[in-house]
């Protein structure tokens, strides 16, 4: 199947290298991952994240449908608020994670949520099927092709945004969204992101994406390579890698996002998760620091005394720390920071230590 190209593809074509990400041909690197990573940690970088999905839900029962399909308490959101949540099945297994925005409205409630790349059709189908099953009165639209998305991230992002848009980030709290204009292009501007830094994500029509991108000329263009090192340093989950309903079935408690579960709401998977919360997870998602030379990668075994106890789901060299870091699952009894383990890299056990996340806590 042909890869979907983001609306900014032509703009990036002669500057970036590309990769297949969730069925999209996305820029992975512009200058170097190290340069791009440092820009986001120290000043400001801009990402094309148009591969992310957009599903819009509105109508009288929109809140009810959102509440019953996401783990967090959607009913508590005021217009203009956003919330991170998981989409779980009846067994409480995470199928996707998402940011759900309650958009400002002048009538019925209206939501926009952002499934991961390549998950938009699945999410849309789930929402429509459940709406039918439960007889709810709301509209669900997969608007993935109707939106481009760029993320401006880093300590200098608020200044960059204030210069380029009609929305002053200072007026926007963390996890808030507002309508505004970027270089005259009407957009949604949200104070969210997935790098651990301050910044915004901007949703705009695809035909105007180049104008929006160009409004942030002073920002370092960043690809998905640095996005991955940035989120790994924060201990943030990557869909399809750190959790996956088939290859890595995990509950939100195992995956370390139990804080995004509200058992007082009635969502799909709620009963299974109430039980899981009672017994506590057997395995935990932890950070790891290698104490020997080597890089832990997805799939590497974690061992204690030669016995396999878990595995790595993400791993890289941390550009900020200059040391190899990883994320993975171990038995809860081994999840305490400082616990000594080994990671098997190409047959060799490398000394490693369980570490708390984010790895860059002082940021």
């Amino acid at each position: 199947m042909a890869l979907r190209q983001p609306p900014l593809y032509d703009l990036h074509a002669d500057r970036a290298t590309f990769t297949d990400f969730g069925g999209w041909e996305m820029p992975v690197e512009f200058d170097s991952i190290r340069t791009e990573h440092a820009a986001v940690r120290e000043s400001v970088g801009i990402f094309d994240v148009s591969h992310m999905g957009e599903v819009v839900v509105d109508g009288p029962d929109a809140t009810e449908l959102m509440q019953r399909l996401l783990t967090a308490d959607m009913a508590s959101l005021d217009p203009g608020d956003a919330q991170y949540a998981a989409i779980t099945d009846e067994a409480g297994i995470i199928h996707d994670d998402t940011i759900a925005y309650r958009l400002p409205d002048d009538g019925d409630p209206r939501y926009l949520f952002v499934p991961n790349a390549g998950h938009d059709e699945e999410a849309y189908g789930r929402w429509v099927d459940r709406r039918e099953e439960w007889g709810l009165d709301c509209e669900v639209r997969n608007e993935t092709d109707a939106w481009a998305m760029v993320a401006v991230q880093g300590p200098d992002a608020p200044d960059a945004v204030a210069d380029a848009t009609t929305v002053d980030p200072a007026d926007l709290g963390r996890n808030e969204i507002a309508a505004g204009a970027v270089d005259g292009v009407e957009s949604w501007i949200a104070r969210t992101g997935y790098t651990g830094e301050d910044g915004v994500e901007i949703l705009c029509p695809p035909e105007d994406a180049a104008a929006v991108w160009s409004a942030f000329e002073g920002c370092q263009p960043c690809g998905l390579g640095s996005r991955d090192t940035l989120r790994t340093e924060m201990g943030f989950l990557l869909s399809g890698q750190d959790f996956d309903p088939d290859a890595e079935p995990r509950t939100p408690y195992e995956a370390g996002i139990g804080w995004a579960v509200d058992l007082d709401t009635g969502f799909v998977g709620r009963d299974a998760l109430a039980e899981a919360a009672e017994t506590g997870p057997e395995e935990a998602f932890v950070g790891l620091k290698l104490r020997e030379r080597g890089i832990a990668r997805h799939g590497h075994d974690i061992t204690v005394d030669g016995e396999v106890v878990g595995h790595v789901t993400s791993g890289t060299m941390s550009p900020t720390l200059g040391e190899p870091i990883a994320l993975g699952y171990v038995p809860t009894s081994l999840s305490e920071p400082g616990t000594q383990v080994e990671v098997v890299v190409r047959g060799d056990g490398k000394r490693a230590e369980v570490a708390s996340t984010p790895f860059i806590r002082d940021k």
Partner: protein
Amino acid sequence: MFETPDDRKYRESHEYATTDGETVTVGISDFAQDELGDVVFVELPAAGDELTQGEEFGVIESIKAVSDLYAPVSGTVSEVNEALFDQPELVNESPYGEGWMLKLDGVDDADFEALLTAEEYSEQTE
């Protein structure tokens, strides 16, 4: 474009070999380091190890990828560039200079001659 100096020969898998008449120095090409991106780790054999042309002799990892390294010629490792263990980025900064990987003794001239010329290798990477 990428530098492909003609004072050395190349393997299709992007390693180069250059000789001073006695010792052969091995590394990876400018094209290869660019493809890999930021190099963060190299695993190399030890001095005294015997390499056979075409066999894996080590591993190079960048932030985004892991690649095997293949011996461009057979020979005995006489020296390893240990600077790369602490500064793997030298491979990016100076693949033909400070970013060299191994020095080999006892290399057969025929092995060396069988490698691609700079021109032939350039055609492959265009």
